[in-house]
């Protein structure tokens, strides 16, 4: 009895929801849908793009928050128009291989992205400076034999697994989530406990905590990453002006980190982006050049 009522109710709810979203979608068709995640680097770039599009091109922008894998799928299907955090060649290799034919590589936004394992600076460099040092028994013991990881299955975690076997480390890669990894650093930091985590740059964590990357002589965690903007196949046709701008759009790693730092400390990326754009008219001019 209850079950059948619940089923009817949920069926009705699903239908209503479908109608509602269809209505909303109609109303917002004119906006460029940009995919975002709660990652500082993506938020920084996406907010700069949004501010420039809205103020200089009079082109409304709508953010759609989605997990990174879903972003690729959304852009490839054409549900999303643009994503601004595509990491190549290593981090998003799996996604890219799968969707490269269904989307447009609009261009490189910035270079110098990096994946790695990092430790707090209070850990003496004489004892731990390279990934190879993790095989020392006393180092391993102080780290409780654990590497603090992020979501399982992603590019960084796959590279980290390879690294463990390449360096023959007897350590456990603890998968969790970005938030879990950050929480475990903020737990260790005030007590100066030893901790090693899988991280990437740009990331605000390097502004909040003094951290350093471990050297990776075997290069199994990958080298420099390039951050691309990917658009749907229809992006250029639907939004020619925004498309032309994105073709020229680029930032430096320092730019991205500056917006990130401001955005993360105030929790207001939109204002941080506005400040940055207003302070750099020459960049905006180059992005908008015909």
């Amino acid at each position, binding site marked *: 009895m209850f079950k059948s009522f619940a089923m009817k109710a949920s069926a009705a709810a699903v239908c209503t929801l479908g109608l509602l979203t269809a209505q909303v979608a109609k109303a917002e068709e004119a906006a460029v849908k940009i995919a975002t995640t709660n990652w500082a680097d993506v938020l920084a770039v996406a907010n700069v793009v949004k501010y420039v599009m809205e103020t200089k091109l009079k082109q409304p922008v709508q953010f759609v928050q989605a997990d990174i894998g879903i972003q690729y799928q959304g852009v490839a299907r054409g549900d999303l128009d643009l994503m601004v955090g595509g990491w190549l060649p290593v981090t998003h290799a799996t996604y890219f291989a799968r969707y490269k034919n269904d989307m447009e590589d609009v261009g490189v936004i910035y270079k110098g992205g990096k994946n790695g394992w990092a430790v707090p600076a209070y850990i003496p460099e004489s004892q731990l400076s390279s990934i190879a040092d993790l095989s020392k028994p006393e180092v391993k013991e102080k780290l409780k034999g654990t590497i*603090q990881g992020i979501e*399982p*299955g992603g590019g960084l975690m796959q590279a980290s697994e390879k690294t463990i076997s390449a360096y023959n480390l007897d350590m456990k890669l603890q998968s*969790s989530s970005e938030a879990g990894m950050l929480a475990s650093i903020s*737990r260790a930091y005030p007590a100066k406990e030893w901790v090693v985590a899988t991280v990437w740059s740009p990331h605000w964590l390097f502004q909040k905590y003094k951290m350093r990357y471990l050297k990776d002589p075997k290069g199994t965690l990958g080298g420099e990453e390039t951050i691309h903007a990917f658009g749907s196949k229809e992006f250029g046709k639907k939004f020619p002006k925004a498309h032309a701008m994105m073709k020229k759009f680029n930032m430096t790693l320092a730019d991205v980190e500056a917006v990130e730092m401001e955005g993360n400390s105030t929790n*207001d990326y939109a204002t941080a982006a506005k400040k940055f754009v207003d302070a750099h008219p020459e960049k905006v001019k180059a992005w908008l050049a015909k």
Partner: protein
Amino acid sequence: MNSSFIGKSVESFVNFLFMHFRSWFDAFSAGLGAVIHLFEISIAAIPFYVMLVAIVGLAVWRKGVFFAIFAGLALGSIQYMGLWNQTVSTLSLVVAATFFSLVVGIPLGIWGARNKRVEVVLRSALDFMQTMPAFVYLIPAVILFGLGKVPAVIATIVFAMPPVVRLTTLGIKQVREELVEAGRSFGSTDLQLLWNIQLPNALPSIMAGVNQTIMMALSMVVVASMIGAGGLGEYVISGIQRLDIGIGFEGGLGVVLLAIILDRITESFGVKSKKKKKVKA
């Protein structure tokens, strides 16, 4: 987006706890971790075929042949998908979380049934625990207890304990007044009354609570793997991260099959004890 005074106070409270009672939390975490580990190694030590025979046997005894065939097929397909280790890991997490939920929850439920004020306080606390989205207490759990199985079990306990507390209270309060009075007139002490009359008669309700607690614990599997619970939840997240529909589905199916087996078997204990109780009463 900035938190107001309310959020900031909670944050400072968590930080205060962490700064001043860190060694306590570490000790608690180590102790709880040892118990969880004990559950895990003892469940993992059981070979697949022994577990299969045990569960199928249990299924025949409690639910009959048809369900036993289903349980056998379900476990077989988990093994076939190569998910046995993940399933054991998830099962031990659920068992540990359920164990602690019952150890804390049943006494709380009894106390609530005997004291009106306690019941009022408990109700609000339980409402809070059940409706506060689980993601919210993941980070405080990690700050206080570190990454891994311990915060995962704690977050699961917070979410899974309410049903057994509520249904224990309800079960005891629903025991017929005549039975309680009969007990009193024969000079039972409070403890005798509880042990011989109230608890046996409340057992079906308590077992329903146990069953619900197990189900709630299972529903936390994926969320808990975001702070290091591992097991099937990790497999599911891995599937999402790789956009691999197959991996995601198999991990999810593992959770569903495990849930059906645990649900039907624990549910049957509630039904059986009802019959027993009628004879006794």
